[in-house]
């Protein structure tokens, strides 16, 4: 069983988001970068499935050299080897093209990634890769079990979930509670330093929808506090001032 897990290199969820260069670039000052939280779930489940099946697990990132510590962390958590496609991830289509190219001749049975990256929140790369490779794709997947070549999944839908059965090979965009996040141990961190990390150049520069400029939402006004003995006043404000009732 060969598993590919695709990870994003994104600002920590607590980051204050700011832009620079006349609002055309993300400002990384003071920002800590992490494996995307959804990708972290995918990685954790991928490690479990690799251990269960005795297969191999490759971690992939499309990013410039600065993302290597994030890939090394994936190796420390349990990936056997890593691939970095050496380019800024310009848009979802661009990233999907690179992933499909890496995957097409390497015979992966299962490709996992997060349901979406937490920077651009597109949630579309898994489906695009699926269509490019002619494989079924599912997202957001909250449970994934293997029974031979059958994959039993649960996919979250509005107000509930669907139980699914499909055959390998397939692609899944993952979310909690598919597995518990794994924290690398000392042995993992040491061995990650010497695990293979292959750097490939992008196959195409084609993009479809690149972000050209950024804006922050307007600053929120101060909260209007209502005394706890004046609950009727809150109802009046919601009705007459905010006009939301």
């Amino acid at each position, binding site marked *: 069983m060969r598993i590919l897990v695709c990870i994003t290199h994104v*600002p920590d969820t*607590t980051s204050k*988001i700011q*832009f620079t260069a006349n609002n055309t670039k993300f400002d990384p000052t003071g920002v800590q970068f992490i494996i995307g*939280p*959804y990708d972290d779930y995918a990685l954790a489940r991928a490690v479990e499935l690799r251990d269960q099946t005795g297969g191999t697990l490759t971690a992939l990132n499309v990013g410039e050299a600065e993302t290597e510590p994030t890939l090394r962390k994936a190796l420390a958590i349990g990936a056997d080897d890593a691939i970095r496609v050496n380019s800024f991830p310009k848009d*979802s*289509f661009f990233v*999907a093209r690179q992933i499909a190219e890496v995957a097409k001749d390497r015979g992966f049975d299962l490709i996992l990634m997060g349901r979406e990256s*937490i*920077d*651009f*929140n*597109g*949630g*579309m790369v898994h*489906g*695009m890769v699926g*269509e*490019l490779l002619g494989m*079924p*794709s*599912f997202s957001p997947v909250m449970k994934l079990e293997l029974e031979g070549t059958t994959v039993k999944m649960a996919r*979250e*839908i*509005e*107000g*509930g*979930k*669907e*139980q699914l*059965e*499909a*055959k390998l090979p397939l692609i899944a*965009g993952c*979310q909690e509670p598919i597995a518990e996040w794994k924290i690398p141990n000392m042995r993992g961190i040491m061995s990650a330093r010497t695990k293979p990390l292959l750097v490939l150049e992008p196959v195409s520069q084609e993009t*479809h*929808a*690149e*972000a*050209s*400029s*950024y*804006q*922050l*939402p307007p600053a*929120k006004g101060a*909260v*209007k*506090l*209502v005394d*706890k003995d004046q*609950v*009727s006043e809150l*109802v009046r404000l*919601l*009705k007459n001032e*905010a006009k*939301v*009732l």
Partner: protein
Amino acid sequence: MSILVYVEQAAGKIKKTSLEAVSYAYALAQKTGEGPVVAIALGTIELQELASVGEAGASKVLHASDARLNAGVIQAHASAVAQAFHSVGASTLILAKSSLGDAVAARLAIKLDAALVSNVVELPRLEGGFVVKRSIYTGKAFADTTITTANKILAIKKNAVDQKTEGPKAQVEPFAVSIPEDDFASKITATEQATGEVLLPEADIVVSGGRGMKGPENWGMIEDLAKTLGAATGCSKPVSDIGWRPHHEHVGQTGVKVAPTLYIAIGISGAIQHLAGVNSSKCIVVINKDAEAPFFKAADYGIVGDAFEIVPQLTAELRAAL
């Protein structure tokens, strides 16, 4: 040129978020001079229900009635919508962002060689190209995105436009699709869905509870308030992690992102990950006994006090007022 809208159904009813997408397409057609707006609906749906899509702004509804499409079989839906897109000669596809919509749109982006932009929050700007504003960093920022392909797909975030309700009935046409058997190879074996309730991602009002509620046995008061308002109920991550509430109610960075008109947070401190799931709300009310709770900084209105006293009072006041 026609604008196609992929509308989703649940148990034969067209989803409200899909009707918003139809209204977005209608407004887009007005702006660009394109049209007509044509909807594609899949599976078993009554004629009358299909015609009512016109009220939201569609002049025609194509109906592929194959009952195998009642379920959200991702690949089959993508194939059917692609056929409709070619059949009406569209260059733009509009859909509502949703669990199924996102998955289908991604495959369509490749099938149709189209740019796909998701989380679209308003109509595009047409000066200097087709520029779409979308929400990014889980609502913490926006990006102007320039589409460079001839075909385009926009997945619309809730509340991007007001839903139109006064349009004439749409003309309904049967639409014959030929879907490869392979698209049905994966099987949906069961669906578990909350029934008779307002679904969280689609709700106009959301009432959420956090650890301040002290235990699942106290959710009755959240539900009473929600019922009074016709609202959906949500919760914070710790509450779903410890199993007080199901995961599909978890609002936040790694849960459901909501965009209601009114969000009421009860006994939730307001961790940044929770705020990421609610920051697209129009109006936020926070009830918390800790005056220092960070949620008050993100709120429009707040009451500092004990939820167990305030919430029943609020429910009673609302019942009297509404």
